[in-house]
């Protein structure tokens, strides 16, 4: 199959591995080891063992979510109608674009693996910087799923409602600030989206 030929492409494989285990991976590993030594010195080996056991449980919990979230993001990345995205949340989308992004962030299901994977898709699909910031801020502060699963049981329904209400205007504000900040913003992910079939 022609379209799976990349699986045998050595340069591609090397690139993926270099990305996975490059300098930043070793930076992370060194950080983890340093905090481990610190925890060992301050809290003792029992707490360290407990923390590691918790990590393992978390990891087992996390992996299926990451796999599903990345599959969703990869599918959307290929299927998303990019031209329509640009008019919906592109540079000239104005306040409406920020509100659409806010709504999308609030209803995005799943944890950071799905939200950030979708954000990366939006970033290469012509969404403007304000919409990107509004989307991820809305996911973080207004995410309905998080409010239902975490705020309500841990803090009570009234608190959850209050937190939702005070957070309502904030993603749009963050998006407006992002549009006005004189900062250079370069999308990291430069891999071009796959060419659509001409008759699609």
């Amino acid at each position, binding site marked *: 199959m022609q*379209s*799976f030929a990349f699986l045998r492409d050595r340069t591609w494989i090397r690139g993926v591995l270099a990305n996975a285990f490059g300098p930043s991976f070793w930076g992370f590993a060194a950080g983890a080891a340093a*905090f481990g030594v610190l925890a060992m010195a301050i809290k003792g080996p029992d*707490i360290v063992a407990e923390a590691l056991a918790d990590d393992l449980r978390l990891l087992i919990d996390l992996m299926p*979510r990451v796999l599903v979230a990345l599959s969703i993001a*990869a599918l959307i990345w*290929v299927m998303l109608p990019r031209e329509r995205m640009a008019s919906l949340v592109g540079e000239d989308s104005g306040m409406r674009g920020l509100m659409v992004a806010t709504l999308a962030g609030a209803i995005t299901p799943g944890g950071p693996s799905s939200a950030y994977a979708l954000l990366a898709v939006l970033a290469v699909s012509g969404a403007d910087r304000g919409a990107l910031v509004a989307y991820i801020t809305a996911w973080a502060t207004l995410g309905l799923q998080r409010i239902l*699963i975490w705020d309500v049981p*841990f803090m009570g329904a009234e608190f959850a409602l209050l937190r939702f209400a005070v957070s309502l205007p*904030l993603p749009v504000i963050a998006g407006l600030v992002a549009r006005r900040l004189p900062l250079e913003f370069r999308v990291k992910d430069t891999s071009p989206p796959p060419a659509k079939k001409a008759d699609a």
Partner: protein
Amino acid sequence: MSVGMLSLVVLLAILAALAVRQGEDFGPVLRRFIEQFGMLVPRMLCALIAAGFIAVLIPKEQIAALLGSEAGILALPVAAAAGLIVPAGPVIAFAIAAVFAKSGASTPALITFITSWSIFAAHRILIYEIPLLGASFLRLRVLSAMVVPLLAGLIALFIARYSAFGEAMPLQ
């Protein structure tokens, strides 16, 4: 299976069915999947372990003492800073919020803490944001959203002057 996982699986099934119906090419889909997997998962392992250690090192009780309603508006920056240093998912963050609430933290302080954590959680930045979006996006987002936790706390503080609605009832 949790609600979140269930909704993700349903979404995936719908998208996959759509892709098959439209006759999409799955080659690029798999390629994108593998590239992002490689970018995320090895770093995620390390960050997860580091976050677990940091979570046990945070002095929860000492911070809680600074968040009471007598601290008023001054509790907000402390709460925002506390949110920054919780490098862990909702299980740990909300467990810490419940500890704060039980030690008498004010509602605006709790809202600021949760908002700050949800926007700036360090593990999310390290595991997802930098690998997937890059440092220039991180800088833009952090500067744009910096005031958001404090704004949330200020609005809550304003509401608290008129109504006691929304007081936390932490899980025991």
